[in-house]
């Protein structure tokens, strides 16, 4: 039998849509690793984050950015680290730098990440996102439910967001976001 090697496939086949000057792109180049803060281990983890990535621990509803690495606060003792990384060993690379100061879980395959951008983005977000995203500062984040799907929105620019939702419902999520753009353009 021929040698078999498994191939990674983006959930949405690398979706890249243009809708009246707006764009929806599947960011399958990003790895996501959750970092949980050990009980009474906040200081050590904060130091490791600073030393490892020059990142501050984000406050609730905020994200911090250093280069291409972004930390998003998701719960009282948990954050997500999002960064470009192609191979399925993101958790190990994060843990290498944390050296046990945080509990890590690879979340890359749990999420679909859509980058949405364009002049109609805020109008489109009104149709799908219950959060007050127009009032988000750049870097602001929020967890919510979009079309019955748990989701996270991170404002990356005046007219751009990263949207995260469960990878299993990625097709439905893309449809929800795409429909929102089509309904306002």
């Amino acid at each position: 039998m021929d040698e078999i090697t498994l191939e990674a496939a983006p959930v949405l086949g690398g979706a890249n849509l243009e809708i009246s000057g707006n764009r929806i792109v599947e960011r399958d180049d990003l790895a996501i690793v959750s970092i949980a803060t050990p009980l009474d281990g906040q200081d050590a983890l904060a130091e490791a984050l600073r030393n490892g990535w020059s990142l501050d621990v984000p406050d609730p509803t905020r994200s911090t950015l250093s280069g291409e690495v972004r930390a998003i606060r998701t719960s009282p003792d948990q954050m997500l680290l999002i960064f470009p990384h192609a191979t399925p060993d993101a958790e190990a690379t994060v843990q290498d730098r944390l050296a046990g100061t945080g509990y890590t879980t690879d979340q890359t395959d749990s999420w679909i990440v859509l980058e949405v951008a364009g002049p109609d983005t805020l109008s489109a977000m009104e149709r799908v996102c219950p959060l007050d995203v127009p009032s988000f500062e750049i870097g602001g984040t929020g967890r919510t439910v979009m079309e019955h799907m748990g989701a996270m929105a991170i404002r990356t620019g005046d007219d751009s967001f990263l949207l995260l939702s469960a990878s299993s419902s990625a097709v439905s999520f893309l449809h929800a976001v795409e429909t929102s753009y089509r309904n306002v353009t």
Partner: protein
Amino acid sequence: MTQAMRIEGGMVDRERTLAFSWNGRWMTGYQGDTLASALLANGERLVGRSFKYHRPRGIFSSGSEEPSALVQLRDGAAQEPNTRATTVELFDGLYATSQNHRGPLAFDLMAVNDLLSPFLAAGFYYKTFMWPKAFWERVYEPLIRASAGLGRLSMQPDPDAYDHGFLHCDLLVIGAGPAGLSAALAASRSGLRVILVDEDFVPGGRLSAETHEVGGQAGADWVAEATAELAANGNVRLMTRTTAFGAFDHGIYGAIERRTDHLVDAEDRPRQVLWRIYTRRALLAAGATERSMAFGNNDRPGIMLAGAVRAYVNRFGVAPGRRVAVFTNNDDGLRTADDLSDKGIEITAVVDARQGDVVEDTIGRRGIRAIRLGDGRRIDADCLAVSGGWSPNVHLTCHHRGRPVWNAEVVGFVPGGELPPGMSVAGAANGTMTLAATIREGHGAGAEIAGDLGAGGSPGTPVEAVDESFAAAPFWHVTGLRNRAWVDLQNDVTTKDVRQSHQEGFRSVEHLKRYTTLGMATDQGRTANVLGLALMAEAAGKSIEETGTTIFRPPYTPVAIGAFGGRARGEHFRPHRLTPSHKWAEENGADFVEAGMWLRAQWFKKPGEKGWRDSVDREASQVRKSVGICDVTTLGKIDIQGRDAAEFLNRVYANAFLKLPVGKVRYGLMLREDGICYDDGTTARLSESHFVMTTTTANAVLVFRNLEFARQCLWPDLDVHLISTTDGWAQFAIAGPNSRALLAKVVDDLDLSNDAFPFMACAKCSVFGGTPARLFRISFSGELAYEIAVPARFGDSMIRALMKTGEEFDAVPYGTEALGVLRIEKGHVAGNEITGQTTARMLGLGSMLSSSKDAIGLRLSKRDAMNADDGMRLAGFRPVDRSVILTAGAHFLNPGDPADMAHDQGWMTSVAYSPELGISVGLGFLKRGTERMGETVRAYSPVRDQDVLVEVCSPHHVDPDGVRQRG
């Protein structure tokens, strides 16, 4: 047609002529017309037939309160019945027809009902149609249903698109009349983020309909100036064609925006958008609605509210009649005569009830021709403008059960009781009935709210205006009438109906409403309620205040069901979750079943297979014979880490987990606080501080939520952390005697021998030359079996590789049906058995309950009643006649006992045809089941018309000693 009733002036754009079809005839109107104003411009007074008596009806109002001019808009699938012509914005190509008549509108055959009116009074249907009893369903009800109702549905799916959305603001102002605009100006100047909504397609409210001056200029000009300032402020969203229809919890308002109803071609964009508006504060500035008075034949076409007459003249440039009479009980109504005279329209009479003059009757059939006064004089009039006073639009103040209170000065109900939190009211909606006062109140409210919310800007000063005279006196109905007088035009409720209701004992306003239907349907009695209450109060000898009022609930005006559905229709009714092997499964004949939001392959059809049983039998057989592969990604997976993770698990599982060795998996049982089982699954220990829990597909979210609650609230002192990894791993069960041989070709460098990797072992590993994976030796089928997981991105590639590698073993994919067959054969419990009503002992898992620790539910699981020896116990069942196919849900009875609950012995929970045994087998709960092996009981299912004898046996129909899974 030439728009014969069009006069000078108004806000319509005479450069833009629009053609529309009314009852098959093409007419013209102008941009800025409503369908109602365009019909009036074309001399169309008769536009519909009344609900019960099929009386000729015309246009009564100029707004959303319209009770009479209901039409069918559009045709074919897009047809919309009961549309108020007064709110339909005219567009080129509009197609409308009248409704509720048989034959032509002018010669409605059902008008015979009017002659039968003595037999059709309020509540007649409660007293008639009583005999013979059998006629009710077969004759009377179909007859009544055919006669009742107004418009007709197309009976086709709605072809239009709808959407919903979410908006946020500091202040929502409801109504863009003088009060609302003034409030929005003050608030936005102060720096608040404001949303201003109005149901009309132009802002301005009554200013569009009146000749008032504001700020030294025409009211409409000030409206244009104000809206321009609001637009320039940048923090205001002015939404016309938008009705705030409900005040909900936490400052959330529902609003419906009509986006494309006024366009010829919506270009596939949503017709309407249902907005959920999150507010810090809201200001209701919804104005007031004029009401009529009751006098003889007060429902004829051409009889209109005086304010509406002014609106048609001043805003639309349309004369509702050439010779107009006015009947009023207030100064506001008198302005009508002045406005019409200014336009050169003849005023034939001004009848002021305050002077003791009344209109007693009207003459005409398809439209009014004359009025007859109380003194017997007949005066010609082709239009009668009636003003019985104004009722503040308090509806939204009632949505949290606030009850309006009577204000004798206003002669109407004003907001009372507790308003929805965060709501204020200003302007006519608050009982402030004159222009300058309304502007000041709106401005003051906007400024005050801005101050409350800490906005620092200056609200400026309110614009100057003059208070017109407003002197109203209560006058409700003319006495001593020979002819019927209508209270509620939409429901054909007359003064006689209201009095009769009282006579028959319906003394509460709520009873009055339900007995007479007063105030129901599309207009919600906005022009009728107060009149009805006044009549009822009079009949009871009470004041209106003592009589009280009904209150309102959402929606303020009708909202299309399609708008509530929004975009959630068809295949997008709800999201779907797909497993990583979904595409491959589609390519390989999978038939999918919904499991929650998941789509799971339930079997894979092969060529030549005639039904699902063929596929399922083949799949289950092949698993027992060689090897099968099943996508089990949908099982919940929870990553549990922390120094205290083992202790945590030991507290949430009923069985022991503290000493589970690294590299091992354990089956665990979770109890609710009350000791009842609610989920089961396996948990693997990957390191001292790292576990991976699996849950059932159905309970994945529930278990995670409960664990999170336990972690955060019950034991915050434990160092334990949770995160779902359900979607992160593509997981496949590989089951059957050849599973080890197959996996040996898949897994890199891991000794899979029984000694090195025994039953309930687990390991991190890699597959196909380096892809990271996790391997668990667990079995749901009872066979030698494993579950292997790879990161989801490799899932599609993994299933293809597994199937390719498995070719030499004739490996088959199997779906959830075969999975079910295998587990029933093996006697493993699942959702059919763990129902939320069953205990560990019932399930045969009583020995798992630890007696040496405490865990959630353990203490209450020890209650005597839950451990009685004669309780239900899980058992297996086989038909005595081996050819019988068993049915789930059958109840067990001892042979000879009657089939009633007193003799109930239990019930069948799961059944399957066992390809392994060649018979139908079942699992179920039977009283003292474990002690009754070999007995014969009846399995009785009246629902499925089955009554068969079954033999009680071990639930483990296949391999009861577990040799295979440990082999």
